[in-house]
């Protein structure tokens, strides 16, 4: 990507070409610099599982995985994801086979309205990848970036704990 010299303000705004691996598919896309990853997913690629809750990185409803790590898609510029491997809630299942975390959320009734659920599940998968949570209290602390206004927290914690293989 070419650098913009000083005096950039006088030049027309341009879109930038990025390459992504998105849910296992290679994509080449043109994005404007101010497009967030969340808007790219929802508005341009019809991947509306990731939700725009607060749009300020406070609620976690937009959580996706970038190179296996959980991030807030609302505070990420799409143009800065060039070369990244992204997984959204739509990419977790294998065909009709749900991801174990998705199965566990159903089993433990870990949601009511479901709005925060895609972010909760992506965050929980990121938590498992990190390998830092080993008990109930640690799960609770390390899921604190995802709010659930229905208050399904206890069931969410149980679902994550089951996937981690801990005691119930």
């Amino acid at each position, binding site marked *: 990507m070419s650098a913009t010299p000083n005096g950039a303000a006088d030049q027309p705004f341009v879109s930038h070409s990025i390459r992504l691996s998105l849910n296992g598919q290679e994509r080449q896309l043109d994005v404007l610099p101010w497009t967030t990853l969340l808007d790219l997913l929802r508005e341009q690629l019809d991947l509306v599982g990731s939700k725009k809750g607060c749009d300020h990185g406070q609620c976690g409803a937009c959580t996706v995985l970038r190179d296996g790590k959980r991030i807030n898609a609302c505070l990420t510029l799409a143009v800065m994801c060039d070369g990244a491997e992204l997984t959204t809630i739509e990419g977790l299942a294998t065909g009709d086979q749900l991801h174990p975390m998705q199965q566990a959320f159903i089993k433990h009734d870990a949601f009511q309205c479901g709005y925060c659920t895609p972010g909760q599940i992506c965050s929980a998968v990121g938590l498992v990848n990190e390998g830092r949570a080993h008990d109930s209290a640690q799960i609770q602390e390390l*899921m604190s*970036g995802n709010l659930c206004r229905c208050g399904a927290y206890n069931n969410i914690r149980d679902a994550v704990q089951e996937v981690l293989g801990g005691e119930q």
Partner: protein
Amino acid sequence: MNPFHYSKPVDVQEAVHLSSGASRFIAGGTNLLDLMKENISRPEHLIDITGLPLNHIQETAEGGVLIGALVSNADLAWHPLIEQRYPLLSQAILAGASPQLRNMASTGGNLLQRTRCYYFYDTNVPCNKREPGSGCPARTGLNRIHAILGASEQCVSTHPSDMCVALAALAARVHVEGRGGARVIEFADFHRLPGDAPQRDNQLADDELITAIELPADNLASHSNYLKIRDRASYAFALVSVAAALELDGDTIIDARLALGGVAHKPWRDRAVEASLIGQVVSRETFSQAADALLQDAEPLVHNGFKIKLARRGIIRALSDAAVAGERP
């Protein structure tokens, strides 16, 4: 968000030469993009520095550690060298933000976080930090979360970072590079008090980029503690936080570090109080006297007087817990 130009330089020199008064560097973006969405920051040009080779943690020849500015908060907190030698820093980082934000936020960016004062964030009201000379509604408004130390008539906001409180206590050094070359800034000098220019949070020039944070060698790892007091148990900014670290010979204090967050425009480290602890024996009385000395010039606003009591108790508890922390594996 306003429209802006975007570039992605490949080395530090190119990055600093691209910069101007109307540009901003971006790495994690967790605070900058939020400020841009609120129309508080309106850069014409974003310089993406994530392609620069500043992503390493390495030991220095002097026995310290050099942390590249692009190391994420999560990678820093969980790095074996940091967990073993600077557990205070790990603890402080993990007390802040959320796992998602810690995965995104960079070491350099953490230093450049802006205050979370409600009036700074509300573009419908005056704010001397946002619009110099416009006034400070916080001084007479809702100021429960505001400063008790080092504030000015123009600004009573606090610095929001947890990581920076630990870095202050650990006497970190900030490596920066600009068009005129590189320099190293002592952490205590990096952030500013508001004075009559609250729009300036720190002493970086427009073209200067943080390249690394250096931690000097110390013997504080066995007896350190970061105590964060906040309105909810997780994912909230500190009302008061205390970074405490001691080097002990039996019960005698050989070295002491004490820094506070949530109380001032910058991480508040009081070297005179630290010096007064050296040679003393660990006791509640010793720590109470240190707390009183540190807070002797504290000035409450209408709603934040509780912070003085909270800080006093927090200092005593953080130092007491540090003293018994014991050898870490």
